[in-house]
């Protein structure tokens, strides 16, 4: 899994690529939780490069979401591939997470 960070005003945009599963999610979670440690963090994760997310990966996303919320912050995903979006929908995660179609929309929502 590759993670690239960019800053857009108050929002940190993280572009992730690869698989988000039991092997890669610890590093993913650790990196995002560090970013979530800021005051009122605003994080967008670009999921365009994520082609597979396992249940272990979903749990890590949920953990990051809880951490962000506890810090009065915001977390959103964008550009989620269709198979991954279907997983988020069926597991009920889209009811908990903000999911935007693209970067511009996500950045605007969290600005």
């Amino acid at each position: 899994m590759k993670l690239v960070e960019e800053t857009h005003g108050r929002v940190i945009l993280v572009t992730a690529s690869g698989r988000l599963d039991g092997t890669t999610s610890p590093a993913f979670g650790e990196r995002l939780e560090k970013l979530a440690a800021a005051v009122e963090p605003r994080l967008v994760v670009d999921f365009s490069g994520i082609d597979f997310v396992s249940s272990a990966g979903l749990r890590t996303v949920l953990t990051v979401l809880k951490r962000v919320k506890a810090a009065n912050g915001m977390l959103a995903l964008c550009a989620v591939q269709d198979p991954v979006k279907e997983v988020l929908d069926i597991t009920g995660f889209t009811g908990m997470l903000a999911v935007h179609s693209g970067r511009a929309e996500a950045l605007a929502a969290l600005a």
Partner: protein
Amino acid sequence: MDAKPRLVEQSLFGVESVIATAYEHHVGNLTGAIADYIPELAAADPNKFGIAVATESGKLFAIGDAEAPFTMQSVSKAFVYCLAQELIGKDAVIERVGVEPSGDAFNAIVFDPHTNRPFNPMVNAGAITVAGIVHQVAGSGAFDLIVDRLSEAAGRRLKMDHAVYRSEAETGHRNRAIGHLLRNVGVLKGSVDEVVDLYFRQCSIVVTATDLARMGATLANLGENPVTGRQVFDLLAVRNTLAVMFTCGMYDYSGNWAFDVGVPAKSGVGGGIVGVVNRQLGIGTFSPRVDPKGNSVRGVASFKEVANELGLHAFDSSNFGSTFIRSIV
């Protein structure tokens, strides 16, 4: 080591890759030892390792030595318990064998002090009691009844390994002692020798990891074999069986299993494990090296990884408790 593993019927987003990855992660784990307290089991190939997953829609994914044969041993206990409930009813079964985890080894000669009955049907004392129920109803036809029913669950004709059966029968003194104690407290009726012999036979039924996956899928699919469409087990008996598998199915590792893996399962010292995800999957693993508690080392490790990746744990954050509640609230 075996040749490159093969995958059968690739479909379903990610399941096959999770199984393949789990296989790759654990195929090199050679810890544990073959169970040899039944002498014939010592002849097993310690390097065999296979994983199979069967869905409630009839799909199958299998890798490694998923077609390698082995004897069911204690894995049979779950299915025979399911059958026994159908034969005399749940309440009559519970009068003779409880549903509480014992925390003791599978061959412990100890009864629940509150009821003076075997703790549950997954320890030898409970399983012999259950075999006694089938014997009481079916007499000399009891083993045929068991093989018929388990074969329907697997979707193919299963057979007994006569060498393993003879080895068990010749060395099964502790199980005979348990049988006599059961007769003494009144939960075993009829001939102790015939009932214990039936128990040895059911333990010697030969299956593969693929068979276990198919049998697990039958339980997952409300008792109906997803491939043949036959109703194999009673619907309510299935629910009760899964509950006991969840709490008692992995010998004295059952608590840790429920904690870490969170699926109903039954293991056997022959190296097999069957797991069930209700309404969704049957999972079968085979690897004959077992840990000191009698559970397959690679089987347990594979289940942990597959459950983690696929969100199989009953209380995983991706799982809803009741779809009925979802529909009405």
